[in-house]
């Protein structure tokens, strides 16, 4: 049986499959259908300092092979999270990573400080795809200096793994990953959703109340994989691959491209046990192919004589 566990900046994960922020609630909703103890880790919905009610309907719409969402980071706020949801998460035998969203650097720090003082949080993932209220609504995530700054400010506040989750909506995602690495971030999560849009042609209105939203699901898998490949070649810290992963075969592509672990998002909506099945499938693949440690797959892509697109023409 292949070794599946993985040490993420000192944190032992049972396997390399986590559930992604915003796609598994706080871990308790799916308990009837999937045992979280079989996951490598569970990442919470983004937590902000104050509760956020989220955006008005419509918040989601299906697209070809994917979906758009504009949830608006609806969450109960870090204080209620600690009081109402953390006790359950403490009882679950899997790594729990708290995802943090904020609109000022100070707010990121504050939320992290609150959580750092609590038992049951094993690490942090920083969602930088939020608008910076200081800079007039421009998202932090598309500003490399801002991402570096957030990492620098958060790093001293915790010894636990500090992950930064990058947005794909930039020209050179690897620059952002290098900025995180440079400031002592332990890992990067790649990718958050792509900006997308849908229109109801009967009413000529946007389907989503926010006009645009975030595209996720199988449709974005090829883009996510290319971003992971780009990032993994540019930094030494681990990369967590995310985007459209539904099957073990999808996850294997990410590992082979250079991800040290993967996160399952939209697929949970179809099957809350998707992550568990993906983990089992990865193990089966390794056993069938005589691979003793899942880790040896990471970055094992054989590009042969292949030249990257930068050297060729689309």
């Amino acid at each position, binding site marked *: 049986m292949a070794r599946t566990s993985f040490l993420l900046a000192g944190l032992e994960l049972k396997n390399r499959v986590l559930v992604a922020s*915003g*796609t*598994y*609630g706080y871990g*308790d*909703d*799916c*308990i*009837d*259908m999937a045992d979280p103890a079989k996951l490598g880790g569970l990442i919470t*919905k983004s937590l902000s300092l104050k509760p956020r*009610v*989220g*955006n*008005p*309907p*419509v*918040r*989601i*719409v*299906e697209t*070809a*092979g*994917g*979906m758009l*969402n504009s*949830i608006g980071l*609806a969450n109960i706020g870090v204080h209620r999270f600690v009081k109402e949801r953390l006790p359950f998460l403490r009882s679950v035998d899997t790594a729990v990573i708290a995802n943090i969203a904020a609109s000022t650097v100070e707010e990121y720090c504050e939320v992290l400080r609150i959580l750092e003082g609590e038992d049951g949080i094993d690490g942090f993932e920083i969602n930088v795809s939020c608008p910076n209220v200081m800079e007039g609504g421009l998202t932090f995530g598309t500003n490399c200096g801002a991402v570096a700054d957030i990492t620098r400010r958060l790093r001293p506040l915790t010894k636990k793994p500090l992950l930064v989750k990058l947005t794909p909506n930039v020209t050179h995602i690897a620059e952002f990953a290098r900025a995180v690495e440079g400031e002592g971030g332990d890992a990067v999560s790649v990718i958050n959703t792509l900006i997308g849009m849908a229109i109801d042609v009967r009413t000529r209105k946007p389907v989503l109340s926010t006009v645009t939203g975030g595209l996720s*699901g*199988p*449709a974005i898998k090829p883009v996510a994989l290319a971003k992971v490949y780009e990032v993994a070649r540019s930094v030494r810290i681990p990369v967590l691959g995310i985007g459209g992963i*539904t099957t073990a075969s999808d996850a294997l592509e990410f590992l082979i491209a250079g991800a040290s672990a993967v996160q399952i998002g*939209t697929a*949970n*909506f*179809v*099957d*809350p*046990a998707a992550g568990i099945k993906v983990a089992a499938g990865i193990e089966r693949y390794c056993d069938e192919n005589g691979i003793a440690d899942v880790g040896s797959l990471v970055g094992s892509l054989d590009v042969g004589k292949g030249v990257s697109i930068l050297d060729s023409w689309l």
Partner: protein
Amino acid sequence: MNDHSKMMIDLCPVEGVRTAGEGIFALSFSSAAISRSVRPGQFLNLRVEESRDPLLRRPFSAYRIDGNVIEVVFNVVGRGTAAMRGKKKGDLLDVMGPLGRPFDTVSLGYDSGILIGGGLGVAPLPLLTSSLKKEGKQVVTFLGARTSAVLVTEYLQDPHIATDDGTRGFHGTVVDLASATLRAHPLSRPRIFACGPTPMLRAVAAFARAEGIPCEVSLEGPMGCGIGICQGCPVETAGDEKRYALMCKDGPTFDIRTIKI
């Protein structure tokens, strides 16, 4: 956490698809586990195809339970429902359920259930009828539809009928019919259970408020997961502070006092 019946995913053999009205179909499949625990007003989330397009499950009210067999009723509005129509006996259907908050039939303090259904909002009413009768309540049913051909009156108890075009029963909306009838013949300690298009539910709510009758409505709208993990199905709650409940988890049935409708 959902504190109703345990939810599960079951691969259910399809029993068949039959016609239940003009352009209206009923799909039945069997699941011992799910059929046992479904309660009126709850829904099932169907994976209509093993495909990445359509990607998400499709929610349908539990329409009928007969032994192990569960039936849902639908009309073809898109690719998901088109695929459902094409199912054949023996096909396997991936069903998640039972989901959501059922109608609150066990509340004390009412003697008669008033059931109001508009269009395919009839779907949860047959199960609700059986439940109410088991609990010894009086059941009075009002059913509305665009036209007679799309009325689905099966498994209901002597429904009062309204059609928009007057092709059967009362010529007008089901809410007009229900309010006129109930004002003329008041019932003892009534409680309203309604399901249908939002404008109809608004009219029902207005009537219930005016008459001071307790009222629950079953809502419908886009859903991502059906189990509370995507936050994709907000329903604005009553009260001054802006807040949202989740249609899939806190609903789909809501007491009208708890939401803005």
